[in-house]
């Protein structure tokens, strides 16, 4: 193997904090060789991002760093900010997690890309740099690069911003690209495109790459070697195939097992206990219980031709309507007792609007919503208040959905209080509910901040169950959780459904998550349901092209499968454009 580009030796990073010193990274050592892709995988708080920021020299000043980092033979710790700046953006570049905030909002995207060229090549004229920026944008697949270069970041979509970030990262053909969760904030189809782009860009310029991610699926198709981190320490380091097929450590195995897979149906039983538990619970019929066929069960929720149109207005004083956004464009579905319907779609497809329309319990703009056969528009104030106990909701963000100032017991009692339960009954139910969701009755007096994300989500579920609802609406209940925690929450939800016979409307952007929990799947795109069918049918034989696209975009945590799936490549001719602009005309022009 060639000389390493980057070698990290015994790196430790600590931060001072209120509760004493926090060890963010401890004794981490790894090397990255020329052209190699290393993935650092770990759950939130494992120290993976901190270690890469240490390489960039971008940690806050409060951090204490020990150990050694060498970049192509140069000791990075011996350099001052000015010397490091010469490396950053030129020899090492970085793609950050959140494309929404990573670009300066007040400068044009073209300017920002041109800037990175000019910083390291001051001899380039401003005009040449701008031209180069356009070429780079074209290379990363931005349509109409000339026009787009003159736009501001807020006019770009998330995926486009991340493309622009990649353009910036490859502008000076660096030796090393560090990508810190580059696709976490993106939709699944965009995520696949961006990962493919990043891979092909890396291969084209022959740079070594460090990919930081929590998602084993992303790793499979990208990395040559994988480093697994947990609680600030390295757990395992090995070639990608070794890690995926013969993991040595328990934690790695759990991490792999907890990843929901869209292809699990074909590959039979998951290899792990965790996966098996998940799968077992997903099939309520397994334990021999008699369940009436779907058609004979009563309908809990019925949505008919639901429309929601937001007017787009212009003019400040006299508002005139210049257009409309059809957030929900005539969707219909029903949920029967004990059934779980998954509503799947990417951000902006109208799934949240649909939920809100249902939860309002009012007359929708157009269409009908019936709960237990009662039209929501026809309800009196009193009936509506009573119905609130039948339809409840579990929110996406377990940090935000519980009032931080209330103890858990009060949070769970809140809906019961509205329904006028007696104090005695409430206390009784709180204990029962807590044990139902896998918490202890002793937890009732604690505050939400004392719990982890997964536990808080369990509290959220307990609150939703408080008044024996008929239908629980789950709005991306696991998307904010780490994969291992996510598996536990999903298993609990599946178990609750089997035991209590409650119906679920499970909203998710991730097909792989809903596979084991839902009976039927509704795929939503641009305010419409493009496909609605039995879960197995949708997975094995998707009818609509969009369903197929969604399915194929889900990363599969299997290196062999993943390698066969890469599609998009970088536009090499556009990228090379600048190197020969003087001599030959741009072939892509």
């Amino acid at each position, binding site marked *: 193997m060639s000389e390493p580009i980057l070698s990290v030796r015994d790196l430790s990073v600590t931060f001072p904090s209120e509760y004493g010193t926090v060890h963010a990274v401890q004794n981490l050592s790894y090397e990255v060789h020329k052209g190699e892709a290393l993935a650092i995988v770990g759950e939130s708080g494992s120290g993976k991002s901190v270690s890469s920021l240490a390489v960039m020299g971008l940690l806050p000043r409060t951090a204490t760093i020990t150990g050694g980092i060498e970049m192509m033979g140069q000791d990075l710790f011996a350099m001052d900010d000015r010397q490091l700046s010469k490396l950053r953006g030129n020899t090492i570049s970085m793609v950050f997690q959140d494309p929404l905030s990573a670009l300066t909002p007040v400068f044009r995207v073209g300017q920002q890309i041109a800037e990175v060229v000019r910083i390291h090549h001051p001899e380039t004229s401003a005009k040449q740099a701008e031209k180069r920026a356009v070429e780079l944008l074209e290379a990363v697949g931005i349509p109409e690069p000339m026009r787009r270069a003159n736009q501001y970041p807020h006019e770009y979509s998330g995926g486009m911003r991340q493309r622009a970030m990649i353009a910036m990262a490859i502008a000076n053909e660096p030796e090393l690209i560090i990508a810190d969760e580059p696709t976490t904030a993106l939709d699944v189809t965009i995520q696949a495109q961006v990962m493919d782009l990043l891979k092909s860009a890396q291969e084209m310029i022959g740079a070594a790459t460090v990919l930081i991610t929590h998602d084993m699926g992303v790793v499979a198709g990208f990395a040559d070697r994988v480093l697994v981190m947990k609680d600030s320490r390295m757990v395992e380091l090995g070639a990608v195939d070794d890690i995926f097929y013969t993991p040595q450590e328990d934690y790695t195995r*759990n991490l792999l*097992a907890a990843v929901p897979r869209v292809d699990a149906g074909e590959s039979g039983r998951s290899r792990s206990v*965790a996966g098996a538990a998940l799968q077992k619970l997903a099939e309520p019929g397994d334990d021999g219980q008699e369940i009436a066929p779907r058609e004979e069960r009563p309908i809990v929720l019925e949505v008919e031709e639901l429309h929601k149109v937001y007017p787009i207005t212009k003019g400040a004083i006299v508002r005139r309507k210049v257009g409309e956004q059809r957030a929900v464009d005539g969707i219909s579905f029903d949920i029967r007792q004990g059934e779980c319907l998954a509503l799947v779609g990417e951000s902006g497809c109208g799934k949240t609007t649909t939920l809100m329309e249902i939860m309002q319990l009012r007359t929708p703009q157009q269409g009908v919503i019936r709960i237990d056969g009662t039209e929501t528009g026809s309800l009196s104030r009193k009936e509506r208040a009573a119905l609130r*106990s039948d339809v409840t909701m579990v929110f996406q963000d377990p940090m935000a959905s519980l*009032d931080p*100032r209330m103890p858990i017991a009060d*949070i769970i009692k*809140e809906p019961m209080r509205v329904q006028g339960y007696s104090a005695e009954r409430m206390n009784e139910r709180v204990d029962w509910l807590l044990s139902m969701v896998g918490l202890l009755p002793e937890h009732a007096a604690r505050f939400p901040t004392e719990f982890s994300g997964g536990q808080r989500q369990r509290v959220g579920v307990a609150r939703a169950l408080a008044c024996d609802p008929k239908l629980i609406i789950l709005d991306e209940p696991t998307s904010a959780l780490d994969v291992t925690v996510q598996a536990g929450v999903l298993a*609990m939800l599946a178990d609750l459904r089997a035991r209590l016979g409650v119906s679920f409307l499970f909203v998710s952007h991730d097909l792989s998550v809903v596979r084991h929990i839902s009976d039927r799947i509704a795929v939503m795109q641009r305010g419409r349901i493009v496909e609605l069918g039995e879960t197995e049918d949708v997975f094995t034989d998707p009818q609509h092209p969009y369903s197929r696209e969604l399915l194929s975009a889900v990363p599969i945590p299997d290196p062999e499968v993943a390698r066969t799936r890469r599609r998009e490549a970088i536009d090499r001719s556009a990228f090379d454009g600048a190197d020969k602009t003087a001599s030959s005309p741009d072939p892509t022009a």
Partner: protein
Amino acid sequence: MTNPHDIRGTDDAAKLRASTDPEENPMIGSTADLTTAVDTALPDDAAPAIESLGRGELLRRRFLRNRNAWVGMIVFVVLIVMAIVGPIVYQYEPFERDLRNALTGPSAYHWFGVNENGLDIFARTMQGLRISLVIGIGTALLTAFLALVVGIVAGYVSHKGKWGALADGALVNLINLFLVVPSILLLMLFSPALQRASWLWMIPLLALFAWMLTARVLRAMTQQLVRTEYVEAARFMGVHPIITMTRHIIPNVASWIIIDTTLGVSAAILGETGLSFIGFGIQYPQVSLGTVLQDYNISAPYTWIPPAAVLAALVISINLMGEALRDALDPTSGSSRL
């Protein structure tokens, strides 16, 4: 993620283990395989769980750890004792004239000296300190109340359909209306007429022109809170809006209000002394620190330095406490009001 908050997950994981013990927890028993799997993945040397501190307790600790907070509290208490005891033990009255000693410096009889009208400066300063304290604290409390009502109502209704937005717009414009004309002008207009009735009128008057900025901040905070999922959850449970406001919104802005009220005391004192200084504040039978300062004489520094020093000590001690409270609440922010 560069901030240490990202690192919190370690502790969370330790707690998760504590609560997913299959034996304690029959429901989890069915998924025992899963949880034990997760358990074994947790190393035993995971960071010790932080002691569970209530938010109030944490605030108190951080506050008391702050040296400035102690300085502020001690000075403030000393000033209050002086304001209470001073006029009782001192032999001169604020309006007792000793013309023979007019414009003489501090002495054993006149601790702070005598101004050119023969009035004793110490007696007047202590009396003024009393008035300023009462006005400062009273105004701050009233201001906080006004701001709380307007800010929370405006913030809460702003998302409630067309009428809500309209009501919010009206309240915002009301706030702006108060900000368009310098409030000192309007205070000057009202104050003399109301002073004829009672000097206590100064409190509602000052409060009337001081609530706007606080209300603006509270409105913004409420708007953010209304969008949080736990307020939305309350709405979907059918909780009455007023209960939502008192149970979810006010407790979550309470610490900010406490800080703002503390700093509001000093702001009110500054406003009142300024107004009194130009002759539109506290009137004759009463004395405020502003009216004491009014009798300054540049060629005799003792005419203004003692009352100015008392005033500065008062405002600084309150501000020190307010800042320490703010630091305790949010150690990363150095924010402040005007």
